[in-house]
Each structure stands twice: as C-alpha cells, then as structure tokens.
C-alpha cells in the first residue's frame, strides 16, 4: 500500500479515534476525578506530610528523613509489622483453601440449591467488621465461649483465645473465615468455567479425583486463585476493623489490649489519632505501601510460572 493511500485511510480513522478517546475519557471522568481527588491527592499529600511533624494542630515544619529513621528503630513498628505478616501468612492460605473447598462443594449441587447456599455463604460478608470483632470476644471467650464449649464436646480443652498471646491471631483467623463468601463466589464462577471436556478427557485417562483436581481444576482456575491471592494479601496486610473493635475499640478494651493484636494499621491509627503524630503515621503508611508493592510484585513475578490464562501468552 502506498504512503498516500495509508494517509488517506488514517485521517478519518484518527479523527474517529480522537472522538472515541474523548468520549471514553468523558465516561471515565467520574472515576478519574474521584481517583485524583480522593486517592492520588491524599497519597501525594501524605507523602509530603511524612517528611514533616504534622499533627493537624500546630504549625508544621519539615523534619527531613527523621520519621523514616524513627520507623526503623521503633520496636512497636517491628512488632506490629511482624504481627501483620504472621497474620497474613495464616489468613491468606486459610481463606483460599476454605473458599475453594466450599466452592467445590457448591459446584456439585443443583443450580437452585447452589443459589440458596451461595447467598447463605455470602451473608456474613455483609456483616459489619466491627460486629465480627465484638462477636469474637463472645464466641472465643476462654471460659464461656461457644468455640471452647464445642471443643470440649470432643475432649479438647480450648485455649484462652483472647488473652493468650499465642492464640490471639489464630482466633482472629478462625473468626475471619466466617466471611469468605466473596472468595467463594469468585471460585465458584471460575470452577463453572472449566471446560467439561477436560474432565471427560481426564476420566478417560483414568486419573484419580485428586489428580483431576491437581492437574485440571487448579490450572484452569489459577487466574482466579492468583487474583484472590493478591487481593487477600493486600487485605490481610491492611487488617484493622475486627482486631481494633475487639481489642482497642473502647477505653475499657484498650486498657486490656493484647500486643498480639497490635496490627500495623492499628499502630498507625494510634500514632495518627491517639498520639497526634500524623507525620510519623504518614511515613508508616508509605512504608506499608512499599511493602505491599514489593509483595505484590513478587507474587506477579512468581505467578508467571503458575498461572494459566486461557488465550493469554503465559
């Protein structure tokens, strides 16, 4: 095709394209404005504040890298970060395994019943996190809680979930498994999309159920697994509501707070709104942002080896 012909063809297409681009931006503008005003703007401001002694009340002055240097020497930053990472390591695989098990069961039952169960599983997802925190204290009370009562029925002397440092995080993990409905729904959709002929081919090859699951189901839903891995990891690293409600939400509970439940965002919140060190809290927020970015980048890198995208090049 000659250059002249190409130009003739490109001109009207370019005009259309520009118009379409403008229209796209117009439709996207509510989100773009929201993102700039409510997300990007505050992020940039918090980055600036992280280099100041801002407390929202007094005159603000720059402190250079002081807040970041203090982060490195603050034992409570280390403690809260390690609590958060341990919690993430416990809750993310637990959520994925339980959700996958529930989704697998749901995918085997009739469509009408599946709808009912899907709703039932999803219901706890809409329960306020604060309510879950309060419920935690009731259900996991070491002496009169329902969990230890149930364990007692099978001869197990349950631990002191809310006071024993070693059991606080496992207790919170168990409590949070109650609200896996969102992940179940994602897995269920992924399972329903696995081509039946792959299972038939596997059956013809005489594979066991476990092999079928391991070599057909998991690869075919690996995209969904990867998506939830990322989302659950970020969510776990930002955990706040339930633990705060249970251990820090009132003056009385704060007096008896357990350091095992001092998650990073709780400590950040304390620094910002209890101790009025907002500059320092901003630095903490940026440290968490960097950590999340690094973990996500590692997950994306690793996923290239394990995640199968139908029609994709990976």
């Amino acid at each position: 095709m000659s250059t002249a012909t190409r130009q003739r063809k490109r001109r009207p297409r370019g005009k259309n394209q520009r118009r379409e681009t403008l229209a796209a931006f117009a439709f996207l503008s509510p989100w773009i404005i929201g993102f700039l005003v409510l997300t990007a703007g505050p992020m940039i401001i918090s980055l600036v504040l992280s280099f100041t002694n801002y407390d929202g009340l007094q005159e603000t002055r720059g402190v250079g890298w002081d807040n970041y240097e203090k982060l490195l020497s603050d034992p409570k930053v280390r403690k809260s970060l390690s609590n958060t990472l341990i919690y993430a390591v416990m809750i993310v695989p637990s959520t994925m395994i339980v959700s996958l098990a529930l989704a697998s069961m749901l995918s085997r039952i009739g469509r009408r019943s599946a709808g009912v169960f899907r709703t039932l599983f999803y219901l706890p997802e809409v329960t306020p996190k604060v309510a879950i925190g309060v419920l935690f204290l009731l259900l996991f009370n070491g002496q009169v809680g329902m969990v230890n009562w149930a364990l007692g029925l099978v001869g197990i002397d349950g631990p002191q979930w809310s006071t024993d440092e070693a059991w606080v995080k496992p207790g919170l993990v168990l409590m949070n498994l109650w609200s896996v409905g969102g992940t179940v729904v994602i897995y269920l959709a992924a399972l329903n999309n696995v081509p039946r002929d792959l299972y038939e081919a596997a059956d013809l090859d005489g594979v066991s159920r476990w092999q079928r699951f391991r070599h057909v189901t998991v690869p075919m839903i690996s995209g969904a697994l990867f998506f939830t891995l990322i989302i659950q990891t970020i969510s776990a690293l930002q955990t706040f509501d339930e633990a705060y409600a249970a251990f820090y939400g009132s003056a009385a509970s704060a007096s008896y707070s357990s350091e095992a439940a001092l998650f990073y965002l709780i400590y950040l919140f304390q620094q910002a709104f209890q101790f009025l060190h907002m500059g320092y809290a901003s630095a903490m927020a940026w440290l968490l942002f960097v950590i999340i970015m690094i973990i996500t980048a590692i997950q994306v890198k690793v996923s290239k080896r394990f995640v199968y995208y139908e029609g994709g090049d990976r």
Partner: protein
Amino acid sequence: MSTRYARTVAVAAIGLLVLSGCGGVGGDDQPTEGEAVTLTTLGFGVDDEIASVRVDLANEAIAPSTVKIGGNAFDAQQFLSAVASGTAPDLIFIDRQLLGTYAARGTIEPLDSCVEKEQINLDQYRDPALEEVTLDGKLYGLPEFYNNRVMMINDDAVASAGLTADDLDPSDRDGLAAATTKLTKRNGADLARIGFDPKIPEFLPMWAKANGVDMISADGKTANLDDPKLVAVLEYAVGMIDAQGGWGSFKAFRDSFDFFGEKNQFATDQLAAFPMEDWYLNVLGEVSPDLKLTVKPFTDQNGDPIDWVTGSAWAVPAGGKNKDLACQWIKTMSDADSWIAAAEARAEKREAEGLAFTGVYTGNEVADEKIFGEIVDLSDTPVYEDAVNGVLEAQESAFSMPASPAGSEFKAAWEGAVNRVLSGQQSPADAMAQAQQEAQTALDNAAAGN
C-alpha cells in the same frame, strides 16, 4: 496541547475548585451582640436527666443562642478533622486525663480570661479535678463528673468464706492475698468466683499511690514508671491474679460478667471484692437493690485512705468561633445550682420508679454538699446509705494524675507494660523500664513541641 484540550482541562479544574469550595468550610463570622447563634459540641450526649436538666439551664443562660449537642464519646479523629478544616466545634467534652495533650498543642483555649469575665468561682470545684485540667499554670477546662475509686465488697461472698469486710484490707498485703485465696472458688479447672480483682492495668495509679509512688511529676513532664516501689506493687497485684488461675482464665471469666444486669457478678456470687468507680453504685442500686454490700476507701500501706479520681471536663477549642457564649454555657453546666437541679430531677425520677437514688458525684464541692446533705435520702436502704458514706469518706483523700502534654502516650505506655506482664511476656521490672523509656520520650517530645 490543543486549545480545545486546554479549555476542557481549565473548565474541569475550575469545576473542581468550585466543588471543593462548596465542601463546607464555614465562615468565621463572629456573632454580633444579641444575635442568636447555634454552638456545636463534641463528645457529649444528652442521655439522661443529669445532662438534659443542665443543658436546659445552660441554654437559658445563652438565650436566644442555643447549643446543638453532637454525638456521645469524644472522637479524636472527628475533632482533629474539624480543627484541620477550620470548623472546630465550640465546645468539647473530654476525659480530663487527655485534655493536656490538646492543651499543649494550643488547640484548647485557656479559660483564665473566661473565668475572669464570667466571674466563675473556682473555689466551688474540687482541687484534684482542677489539677487535672491545669497545665503550666493555665486552666483549660471546667470539671464535670468526679469518679472516685473505692473498695466494693460482696458481704455474702465474704461471709461464706468465714471472713468479714475488714479482712479485705489493702494496707495488709499478706492478709489481702490470704483472703483472696480463701474467697476464690473453682469449678473444676474453671473459675467460679474471683476472690479479689485488683483491676489492673487501669487502676495502677491507685496501687502506685498506695505504695507511695506518683507515676508522673506534679508538672506532668517527668515519668516515674520504673520506681522500684511501683514495680513491687505491680508484682504483688499480678501475683494475686496468678494465684487465682492466671490472667487468661481470670479475664475470660471476668469478661463473662453481666456487669450492668440483674445477674451481675455480685448478685451471682462471681466476685467477692474489687476496687471500683463510684458510678457502679448507681448501677447496683438499680439492678440489685437488695444486695449486701460494703463500700470503704482503698488504703495505702499505712492504712490511710486514698482515692484516685478522674472524670471529664468542658473545654473551649481555640478555633471555636463563639468563645464567649461557650464560656457562659460551660459555666452554667458545671455550676452548683445546675448540678443540684439535675440531682433533684434524678431523685424524683428514681422515687417514681421506686428505686434508690445514690447521688451524683461531681467535681463541684458546693453541689455535692447539697446533693448528699439534702437530696440523697437512703434511710430506707441502709446498705446503700453506708456505701455512699464510704465514697464520701474516700473523697476526703482524693488525688488525681496531673495534666500532661502527652497524656495519651503516657497512659498507653504504662497500660501496655502491665499487659505485657499479665500475658507473661515481660517481668514487671523490664516492662516498667520499657514503659518509663517510652513515656519519657513522649513527654520530652511533647515538651519540645514535636
């Protein structure tokens, strides 16, 4: 960039600015003489007649202006957002222990000129309450309630162990520990009755005082948390909990109490004794009027009564726009006549309900004299009459923690230390040494304006 693009961006930017401008930062118009304005509050709720009667009187004092009551507990996040956006409330109702933190940052208006202009009689307020709201010699708040801490003893539980209330004597540490062991009841591995709850960490300042230690200096700037005498008394208090099965089961059992209900821990024989705040008498008077209870002052090692008092205060934010009216309003709210009117309303209500009125403990001494001298009549309920007398006796030996520029961090430091000891993470000495370092760093930073 094409002209059309530039125009679009400019229009969008102007639109955003206009939208932002509509976001609600109020004007800073000062009301003119006689103009009716509506003052805003934070941290206060009109939950009962003690509040509503005084609010009505205070509103009369600033008529035709009025006050819009907002919310319940003081919310630091809400307050900071309001201050930062230039819409500070006109009044805040705040825990006196936290007031110093905000005062040191210049967020709270000193009330000295308010006191002078409105001729507020400071002599009517109790000294320990005033000390809590005074920082660097300046008054930052007018005290409200006055929470006394006294020993509350379940007579039936004590009698069932062959003891008397006198056996629970904080000045006799060995005797108290022995009585605690006797009073503790178990049902297999589970606790069935706590013998004595030392109420730590929250009552640590009282235990410290009982051992002759002030946890912070009078000017609120020097922590004294690693004092060996404080470490020793913490060890003692934790030892009592350990003797009753350890923190885990102790707290789990305590968390199961129906604290505000008819099946409360005294009524159900789940607790023999604890130091507690006076307001709990009102609860017990309502839900367990027939309870056999002994109330007496907590004592130091010499047997002298001590009473750690706390409470709330009214303060005027520096960014408030109606400071004169706010001053008039809080003067009336904390005035003796207002408290008396509120107490009369409560007494009438209680009488109509057939319940005992055990009084209101205020930071206003003049009001208390009238309330407990003339309004409170517990002759029909001698148990509660004796209990109230126990509180009044304790009041004579009250002390408070002085205002501190880092009140929140100071409290978090010592509470965290006690929790680490209770959970077995640290020894009392190590925990208090860490707390001392954390608290002093916070106090130094606050003093330096950081």
